[in-house]
């Protein structure tokens, strides 16, 4: 299993209450699978996936899946610092998990400082709603909160794969845009953004480029 070559690596962290579906979301995103049963995350787990942003730049996402359980709170906060993006995850059918989002966001901001990460508000378990479940957080309400705080909002289902890709893609694109605009930079001592292995020249080598006059050797 050799990982393909990438241009950038972004570190994203998933935070939110226990059992909202962070690990399932990540599992679907990286594996394309949904696990009916899974053990609660211990401390932090890692996932990785390569995606391409609009201009074809390849970005490796290093995804930090934090434990939502209260007992790990003191540990997980050590892990925030090197993140360039944070997905605030709540369960559409769990009011409390949505109400805790401002706390999660404040916590993340505090620990990621002085860096300013991209936040996204991600609602999970959309399939339960369409399956007759009880929605406790309206889309409008979540959207209003997101707009108010300048977040991207999306509702997803890891079981059906709805919007999972989009949730990560929007954050990745936004981080990339900010790199392009110069707002984000690759910095020593901060691992939120790293440059990856560059593709060797000549991958798309063609004859026209073989101008002998351009091969300087002196």
């Amino acid at each position: 299993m050799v990982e393909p070559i990438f241009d950038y690596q972004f570190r994203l962290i998933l935070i939110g209450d226990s059992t909202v579906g962070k690990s399932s979301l990540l599992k679907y995103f990286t594996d394309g699978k949904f696990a009916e049963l899974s053990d609660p995350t211990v401390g932090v787990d890692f996932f990785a996936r390569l995606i391409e942003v609009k201009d074809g730049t390849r970005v490796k996402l290093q995804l930090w899946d934090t434990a939502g359980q209260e007992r790990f709170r003191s540990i997980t906060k050590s892990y925030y610092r090197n993140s360039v993006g944070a997905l605030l995850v709540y369960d559409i059918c769990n009011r409390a998990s949505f109400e805790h989002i401002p706390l999660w966001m404040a916590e993340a901001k505090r620990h990621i400082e002085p860096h300013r990460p991209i936040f996204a508000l991600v609602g999970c378990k959309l399939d339960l709603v369409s399956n007759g479940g009880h929605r406790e957080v309206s889309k409008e309400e979540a959207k209003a909160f997101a707009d108010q705080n300048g977040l991207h909002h999306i509702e997803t289902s890891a079981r059906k794969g709805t919007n999972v890709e989009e949730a990560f893609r929007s954050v990745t694109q936004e981080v990339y845009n900010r790199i392009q605009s110069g707002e984000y930079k690759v910095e020593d001592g901060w691992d939120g953004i790293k440059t990856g292995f560059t593709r060797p020249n000549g991958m798309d080598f063609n004859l026209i480029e073989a101008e002998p006059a351009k091969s300087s050797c002196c």
Partner: protein
Amino acid sequence: METSDSECFESADEEIYAENENKKSKKVAGSPPSKEIPCETEHISYLKTEETKNERTNILDSNLQVDEDKPTKIGLSNTNEPEVITDNNTSNIQEEDEVNMWDEDEDWEPVETKTEIKPSESPPLTINRIWGWDLSAMLNAATVGVTAVTTQVSQGLSNVLETGIGAPDPAELARRTTQEEHTHDAEITEPSTNSSTNLFGFGNLVSGVTQITKLVETTGNKVILGGLDTLETIGKKTMQVLQEGDPGLKKKRALLKIEGEKPVLSHILREAKEKAELENRLLEEQHFARKANYESLFDDHQGLVHLEALEMLSKQCSIKLERLIESQSGRELVELQETMNQIVELCELVDDDDELEDASEIKEKLDTAVSEMVINISYDKVLTTRKEAEQWLDNLHLGVCSELELHEQAIDTLAQLTALAVERYHKIGELLLIKEHRSTADEADSLVQVTTILTALIGNMATKFSNKLSEKLSDSTHKDHINTLITNVYFESANSTSYLKNAFQLLIPVLQVGAI
């Protein structure tokens, strides 16, 4: 730049090419005395290429400077060369320096005499410029001719002309340049000692020169007069060809370069093909290199990120401890520091050369060791990976598996086992931190045992792979290569061990936090 430019230039037109060849051969004969006329072809060819470069620069220069009506330097001594050559080419400069050195040579009288002869003949302006170089070279030829047979000079020219065709390969050219430098060095020192054992016969040459200086003066004239005609023809022809489709050569050098590229499609294609082949080979090597790169594989198996997370955890604990130590004083501080030190001592690893037997024994040992920590952690993944690698080795048909594949598998197994082990250290750290009743001494003891078992396990795995590689040694022609691979497996095994020990060290603050 110079090399490729001149190459394009050279191949731009068949005629130019031919003309250049002509001149090259003149040059050969007219090279510094060290290059004796009865020289071997190899000798000739490299001189030729060197000088041809300069020549071309001069031609270009003269073309560009015709309008400026700069005073022409006919038969000028080489000291004037730097003005003529505008290209900052190092080899040109070298050449100048070297020639100048020759000028300063006391035995080099003939050059001076000849120089004065030249202005009497005044060929067309542009051509004169070209001659600026050629003539001085010809002068050198004159002296050479003295030691050999004077008449041979012109004959030699035509001989060389026929043999010395072929575009210089840039790499070859570079090699020759350095070669020539060495040659020059050698020659420069030799004359002073005037040793009779001169490698190049230069000592003899010098004495010959001094003995027959007068002869040089007379015969030199002959050579030059004869050579001038040929040179003039070459120069004219060259200019003619150069001006075809570009009257007056008003286009600058840049344009000339581009023009030169057009007609040599075959050249471009050949270079492209070579380049593509090289790229492919590099890519293939890179592919293998990356495939068997321990660090990349360790990262692929999430080892690096777990190590990093463990570092964060460790740092967090250290900060907590530091704050505590700062807040303490007196006896309490001493006691606290003692406790901290005791924990560090508990974590000292002893070299244990215990041989690992079978899988079940390893599992048993690990389980016992881990149980002391009283946390819910299992090493099943590590054990499964180890078992799978063992099975892979058992089912391996050495005939089908190349040493590279075997090595790749070895490195991947080591990287994966280490990554899994590091991940376990990280989890242990997290679980210990949320554990309610800490028992630091037991935890430390347990971790020492676990680390010892894991490092032995990894060393054992490396040995197994190395043994397989060694089996390949007997019927392989690349013994050195295989030995390198074996060394690499052991190296990465040591690397793995240090990753594990490092991970264990990172847990010490976690243990210390538990003791307060």
